[in-house]
């Protein structure tokens, strides 16, 4: 139970809220039996509780909600009408759920709450809709108002609802509700507790009590302590256990997002006021005031950061429970599934995260249930026995994309089309005009399910439409793509309204812009002498490590006054798999910025991924690197490249791997570029020693160095005053690989490779007519920092626990 603590806690908190809503909804449904919206809502909520209880292994809860769900699905499909009796039965089911939840909250298990009676009542409604639950009939006939009054009354019951709920329920209208349980042992007098725990003798407690009666105003524990009759620890234990236990619902509070929005706006104003004050105070020159202003400055920044953080959470927060879902589900279905997660650290606004949670769980369960085939089918179709389910999250074009991809059988387009016609979602002649993608997206329609039989996992036609409604409600979009036999990818695109990104702020023609750090490869300063911009028939280029880098002048692209070629910076950017240099006047710093979506009136401009409020309170535009590249005709030339390489029958260019070629002694060593975080030069003088290792101080961290020449047994070249390093980071940790020289970045089309057994290498390849060794990056990193991966794994374990 321990490892499940957090999940169960959240489940309880959520279910408590849901139950209250359900009470209200059921009562409204009785008054408005035709409301399909209400039925759907109730159904989904019950479905969610059922689903969660299923994977938390609360089988009674699952059976109970399953019964309720079955009845509700009959109501939804119009098989039987909504009557007072059905509502009564459903309310009884809710009370049963409540009792079970209370027991779970208390003991962590379902205990011996009897649900069979309720299930029988619910089932009776399905087999014999006319039947009246005994004793409940008068209540049902007594008008909905009585029901409405009843619902809150049930909430007032102590959390420890006595077991045997059906009885309690049926007795409700007779006023014979069992008496509330006596205040339990938690509130036992302190003396009694001390005696029980053996910390004090009965006679001592009796005499202390007598003293109190005789007018001693000290507390009982104090008297016993003063007289040395008991130990202080025992008293404090007893006092603590006397305090009422905090229930799950008390230990965390939910704050309205509107409130947070309000706070955020206020902080925004505070920042502006602070800026004015700081400026004003600086002019006055009063030292005491300057100090106060600086303090205010700091506090404001921290407050701003804090409020922002209250809303941002890594997607891992909702992902962390999925391994368990996948594990349990695949066990139950006798499948082998390997869950891969990429981009755990992608941060999302809390509201968005909440909105993504249920859809994501649905998609994952669906992929496990329907997407990935069982072991024998997989082997029969020539795949490995183990299926792979990949969760991916990343920022893309002003959105966060979350993908759920499986390598299963793929969607059966014909079956979807057939089913859609059967369910009346589309006419046969409509299907004829639809393309594959359009047909596939019909699975998001309400009431659609291709599963032949109803299972506990999925297949009732909820799920996919929940996915769609939830995502669309936050302004996102859903999509599905599938290749028969290869697998299915579900894609959720979520707006970035409040996402925070690392960004580089730059100046260009006296205007400030923001470039997402994720696209920035490196920065180059152009002094006009040793580094300069050249022109190839009018097109600006820069020689970056021997290769020509196409340049884009930001000022010209934006139609601003065009500046000179000296004293400017080149921001080397990557977009659409191609790099180019953006010429800007000044590079300021990197900072975290909150991305705000730009109004639709700027969509046609296309150059901006959004806007942000910069430190001084002014709005800054976030550049869309991909469209900058497109606008400068870079993308078209990249398309040309890929078509050439396709003609070369080397396959599509995305199979090519970009490699960083370095010189290590006489040898050439290539490192996959996607594992490289940054290239740096460190002065030799900055290298320090920690034990037998070399380290440098870097961005406030201690960065371990490993010399590839030692690792690979090469003779190092003569050392100059600086060393070139390749920085590799994962999470908080970084290591630096020291090479003699950075030679080039090349695209390797995976040809002429040979595997070698040499330590530290994964193979060799011929690159630019030279034999180049491919570095085993993982091994090199472990050589630099043996704990690099172990610590990471431990960190991940902590998150999941």
């Amino acid at each position: 139970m321990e490892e499940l603590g957090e999940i169960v806690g959240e489940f309880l908190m959520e279910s408590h809220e849901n139950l209250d809503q359900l009470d209200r909804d059921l009562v409204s449904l009785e008054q408005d039996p035709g409301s399909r919206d209400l039925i759907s809502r109730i159904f989904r909520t019950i479905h969610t509780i059922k689903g969660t209880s299923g994977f938390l292994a609360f089988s009674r809860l699952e059976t109970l909600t399953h019964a309720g769900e079955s009845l509700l699905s009959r109501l939804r499909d119009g098989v039987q009408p909504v009557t007072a009796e059905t509502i009564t039965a459903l309310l009884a089911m809710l009370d049963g759920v409540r009792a079970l939840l209370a027991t779970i909250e208390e003991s962590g298990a379902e205990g011996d709450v009897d649900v069979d009676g309720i299930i029988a009542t619910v089932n009776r409604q399905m087999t014999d809709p006319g039947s009246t639950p005994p004793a409940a009939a008068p209540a049902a006939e007594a008008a909905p108002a009585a029901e409405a009054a009843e619902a809150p009354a049930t909430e007032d019951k102590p959390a420890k609802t006595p077991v045997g709920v059906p009885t309690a329920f049926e007795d409700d209208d007779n006023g014979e509700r069992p008496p509330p349980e006596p205040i339990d042992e938690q509130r036992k007098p302190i003396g009694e507790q001390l005696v029980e725990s053996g910390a004090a003798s009965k006679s001592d407690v009796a005499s202390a009590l007598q003293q109190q009666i005789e007018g001693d105003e000290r507390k009982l524990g104090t008297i016993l302590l003063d007289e040395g009759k008991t130990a202080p620890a025992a008293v404090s234990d007893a006092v603590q256990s006397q305090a009422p236990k905090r229930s799950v619902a008390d230990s965390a509070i939910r704050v309205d997002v509107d409130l947070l929005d309000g706070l955020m706006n206020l902080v925004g104003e505070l920042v502006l006021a602070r800026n004015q004050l700081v400026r004003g105070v600086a002019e006055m020159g009063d030292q005491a005031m300057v100090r106060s202003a600086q303090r205010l400055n700091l506090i404001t920044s921290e407050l701003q950061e804090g409020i922002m953080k209250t809303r941002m959470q890594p997607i891992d927060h909702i992902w962390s429970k999925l391994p368990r879902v996948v594990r349990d589900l695949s066990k139950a279905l006798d499948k082998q599934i390997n869950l891969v997660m990429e981009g755990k650290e992608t941060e999302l606004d809390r509201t968005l995260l909440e909105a993504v949670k249920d859809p994501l769980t649905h998609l994952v369960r669906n992929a496990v249930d329907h997407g990935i085939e069982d072991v024998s089918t997989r082997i029969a179709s020539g795949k490995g026995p183990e299926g792979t389910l990949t969760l991916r999250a990343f920022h893309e074009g002003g959105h966060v994309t979350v993908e759920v991809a499986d390598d299963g059988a793929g969607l059966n387009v014909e079956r979807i089309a057939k089913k859609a016609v059967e369910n009346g979602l589309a006419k046969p002649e409509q299907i004829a005009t639809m393309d594959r993608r359009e047909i596939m997206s019909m699975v998001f329609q309400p009431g659609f399910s291709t599963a032949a039989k109803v299972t506990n996992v999925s297949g009732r036609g909820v799920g996919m439409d929940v996915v769609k409604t939830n995502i669309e409600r936050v302004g996102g979009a859903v999509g599905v793509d599938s290749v028969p036999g290869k697998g299915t990818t579900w894609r959720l695109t979520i707006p970035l309204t409040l996402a925070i990104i690392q960004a580089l702020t730059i100046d260009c023609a006296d205007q400030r812009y923001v470039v997402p750090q994720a696209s920035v490869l490196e920065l180059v300063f152009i002094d006009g002498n040793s580094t300069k911009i050249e022109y190839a028939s009018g097109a600006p280029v820069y020689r970056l490590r021997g290769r020509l880098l196409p340049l884009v002048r930001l000022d010209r692209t934006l139609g601003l006054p065009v500046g000179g070629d000296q004293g400017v910076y080149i921001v080397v950017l990557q977009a659409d798999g191609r790099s180019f240099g953006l010429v800007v006047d000044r590079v300021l710093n990197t900072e975290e910025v909150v991305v705000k979506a730009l109004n639709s009136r700027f969509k046609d401009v296309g150059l901006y991924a959004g806007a942000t409020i910069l430190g001084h309170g002014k709005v800054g535009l976030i550049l869309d690197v991909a469209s900058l590249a497109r606008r400068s005709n870079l993308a078209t030339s990249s398309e040309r490249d890929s078509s050439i390489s396709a003609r070369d029958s080397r396959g599509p260019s995305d199979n090519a791997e970009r490699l960083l070629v370095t010189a290590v002694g006489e040898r050439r060593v290539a490192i996959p570029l996607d594992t490289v975080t940054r290239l740096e030069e460190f002065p030799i003088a900055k290298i320090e020693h920690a034990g037998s290792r070399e380290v440098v101080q870097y961005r406030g961290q201690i960065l371990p160095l490993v010399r590839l020449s030692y690792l690979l047994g090469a003779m190092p070249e003569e050392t100059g005053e600086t060393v070139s390093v390749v920085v590799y980071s994962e999470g908080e940790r970084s290591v630096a690989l020291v090479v003699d020289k950075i030679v080039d970045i090349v695209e390797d089309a995976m040809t002429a490779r040979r595997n070698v057994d040499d330590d530290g290498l994964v193979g060799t390849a011929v690159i630019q007519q030279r034999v180049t060794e491919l570095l085993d990056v993982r091994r090199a990193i472990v050589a630099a920092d043996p704990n690099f991966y172990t610590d990471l794994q431990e960190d991940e374990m902590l998150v999941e626990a």
Partner: protein
Amino acid sequence: MATRQFATFEVAGQLFGVEVHTVQEVLSYNEYTMVPLAPSAVGGLFNLRGQVIAAVDLRVQLGLPRQSLDGPVMNVILRGDEEPVSLLVDKIGEVVDLDEATFEPPPDTLNGPTRELVVGTFKLEGRLMLALNVAQAVDTYRTPAVS
């Protein structure tokens, strides 16, 4: 007779008005971020308590030269369909109660860009107020983008 409340403001000496319920607030602001390549009627963006607001230059919408954004400029911030949008104006006037009886369609002699933005004329004491069509006034795609 029914009356309507209008918030009034001046652009190039002409009095305009929008119905009060469409206005969120009025404020003067002096730090705008220009948006290169945006439609010319977009004056810029500014930070309204953490929200990024687009300011539409009413002068441009009326076929006049751009408003200079070097100093403080008055903003009439309108509740948009999705988010607030601001109109840059020269001067803020009063809020007036106007009788429907004083309303007339725009005069036939009024033409050009202004005609498209105006739904009618209210005859005030001593001067005329043109009632703006809010949707048209904030539609920045009416005018061609700056090349």
